[in-house]
């Protein structure tokens, strides 16, 4: 069964990952400094810091795989993988550029016009341009093809009406890649198109939605008679569904899908110390084994993406297994430590536990719910 095969990466795709890794580690140690403690790290990839993102851009660690003509660095997908996993393991504040670098840039590179590439990609690579994802809506979450936000042809372009929901960091982003209906509702897949939306366009309202920890990451983004030029269309009209599916392969397979609780694992190991008892050793060993295998799978997907293959199934499997592990970590930590979670404290184990418990429900929702992912896998198995 090919859909569950995770082949090794091609030999030519890997230059000197160890040297790059050492370079990134040294940079992070210097840049984050000794005061960047567990509670900051535990934000995982939701820490937002444009200054940090620009520094990564200066290092050449954003838009790494993009052509030089667009400000990129023509590095391999595996080089990018090394940088990304090091950033995540360190809990670096990567949220500002995360979506742009992970999925918007490759999407624009593959489907955008030359003008769109020239306009956007160099800014993403510099760490100056941030994106949000315009997929979910109030009445279409998992059922993405039921999107109702409509883009109607006008003389000069399109007029957009509708609402997008759960839009992470829309309030800090410059652009949204919007999935909107350009055809009839009956044409569920064929009637969708993607648009490159400048969020400063009049008629767009971004309202905060606080999460269960009271933090503001998510938003509601409403479009009311928003006029966009014809060249805001991203890719082909009617190809939105196909493009979104390609985008999701980038979104679902990365190390951000199994390292979200990594700060808590580190805190747990620190708590246990260097002489674990039998149970503690078993628990940490099991987590380590899962992480090692997930990492191999995720690297394999990066290699497939780099070869231009479509590893949508494998990406989905990585995300499903990764979320299970991420969500298990706080439960495991509780079983070992007998420490009540305490939000608001700084750098205590109890605080990291609190943060992770409150973040964990989202791990199997964002990027596709567990049920949807398993439905996709079942389709790959030939069951639907």
């Amino acid at each position, binding site marked *: 069964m090919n859909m*569950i095969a995770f082949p090794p990466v091609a*030999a030519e795709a890997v230059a000197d990952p160890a040297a790059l890794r050492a370079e990134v580690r040294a940079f992070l140690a210097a840049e984050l400094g000794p005061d960047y403690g567990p509670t900051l790290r535990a934000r995982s990839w939701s820490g937002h810091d444009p200054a940090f993102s620009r520094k990564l851009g200066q290092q050449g660690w954003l838009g790494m795989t993009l052509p030089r003509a667009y400000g990129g660095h023509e590095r391999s997908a595996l080089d990018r993988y090394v940088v990304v996993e090091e950033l995540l393991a360190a809990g670096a504040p990567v949220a500002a550029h995360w979506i742009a670098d992970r999925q918007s840039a490759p999407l624009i590179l593959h489907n955008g016009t030359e003008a769109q590439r020239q306009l956007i990609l160099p800014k993403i690579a510099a760490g100056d341009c941030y994106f949000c994802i315009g997929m979910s809506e109030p009445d279409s979450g998992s059922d993405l093809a039921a999107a109702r936000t409509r883009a109607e042809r006008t003389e000069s372009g399109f007029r957009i009406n509708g609402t997008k929901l759960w839009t992470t960091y829309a309030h800090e982003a410059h652009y949204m890649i919007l999935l909107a209906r350009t055809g009839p509702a009956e044409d569920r897949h064929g009637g969708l198109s993607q648009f490159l939306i400048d969020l400063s366009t009049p008629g767009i309202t971004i309202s905060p939605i606080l999460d269960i920890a009271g933090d503001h990451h998510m938003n509601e983004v409403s479009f009311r008679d928003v006029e966009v030029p014809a060249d805001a269309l991203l890719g082909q009209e009617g190809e939105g569904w196909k493009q979104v599916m390609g985008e999701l392969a980038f979104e679902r397979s990365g190390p951000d899908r199994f390292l979200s609780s990594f700060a808590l694992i*580190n805190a747990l190991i*620190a708590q246990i110390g260097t002489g674990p008892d039998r149970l503690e050793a078993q628990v940490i060993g*099991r987590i380590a*084994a899962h992480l090692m295998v997930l990492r191999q799978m995720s690297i394999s997907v990066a290699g497939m993406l780099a070869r231009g293959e479509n590893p949508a199934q494998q990406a989905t*499997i990585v995300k499903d297994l990764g979320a299970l592990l991420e969500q298990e970590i706080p439960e495991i930590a509780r079983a070992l430590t007998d420490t009540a979670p305490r939000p608001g404290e700084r750098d205590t184990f109890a605080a990291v536990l609190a943060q992770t418990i409150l973040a964990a429900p989202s791990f199997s929702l964002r990027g596709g719910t567990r049920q949807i992912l398993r439905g996709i896998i079942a389709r790959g198995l030939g069951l639907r």
Partner: protein
Amino acid sequence: MDRMIADSAERLFSAYREHSFAALPAQAGADAAPLPAGLWAEIEEAGFPLALLSEDEGGFGLPAESALALVRMAAEHAVAAPLGETMIANLLLARAGLDPVEGIASFTADHALTLTPVASGWQATGRLHAVPYGRMAQTIVVRVKTAEGAKLAALPAGTALPAHNLVAEPQDTLVYDLTLPAEAVTDAPALCEEMLLLGALLRAQGVAGALSALLGLTVDYANERKQFGRPIGKFQAIQQELAVLAGETAAAGAGAEMAARAFADALAGNTEADWRLAVAAAKLRAGEAAGKSAAIAHQVIAAIGFSHEYPLHALTRRLWAWRDECGSEAHWARWIGETCCARGAEGFWPLLTQPEIRGAA
């Protein structure tokens, strides 16, 4: 070269699928199953027992990853044979500077055997425990500590006290009291210290192979079996279960390949990374996948899958047997955990990323 070997292995093992199933005794407690007639001769003819050896050592220069893929493939066809054991035994002999052997060979980390120097060689006295295919093996490789340092001994067949695992594979105690010729004992190569891990490496491959067959069998069943007027695979409840089965199978497979690559790198001497960690992780992950997946397959295939006539148990019994052989999940989790904790929180991530990303051979 690689492709040709894989193709001939595929032909060989698929031809013996039914025979291996038919050889399973009706009673799980009865006795070990015999090898299907002709199977081992064909395996030897194909040269597979030497697959881990370099050309200098008498092998055909196959990358270790591809050699271990043969073990995975045999398991995928539910073919019971001591191929992996013989491959590893020959590798250990080669690393000790000895010639590979004809026939079935095995190895074990678990023994109470002593070697004492005598005029004509070494006196070997004691027992080997749970030797895979012990009664059939013409050579058994063990590492024994002696007053003259750790030695590798190539033992001949011993007196077998028969025992077998859940899927009727021999796991015999072998009793010895004999004199070994001097040339059957040499200084133990470093690889000999990791006999348990070498067994775990094989079991991880085996579990991965058996799981991939289990997934195929279960999905096919779900597509064919109709209830309430449609194939049960059309029900979301079943689909969600099978998706979990696919994920576990994928993880076990990826882990087995990770272990095989790490081992290949270590054999080739082109890495500083500790292959042992990758193998232990793969065995643990495979063992966990084995338990979860066997439960799902039995739930989906239901009553007929619980019957002796249906081939599901040839796979699930292997999974339940192999996950506990050569170190259970608990054993390897503890070992990995101790390794991780000893390095402290700061050392955890560097340890996980120590097998550096590398391209295929």
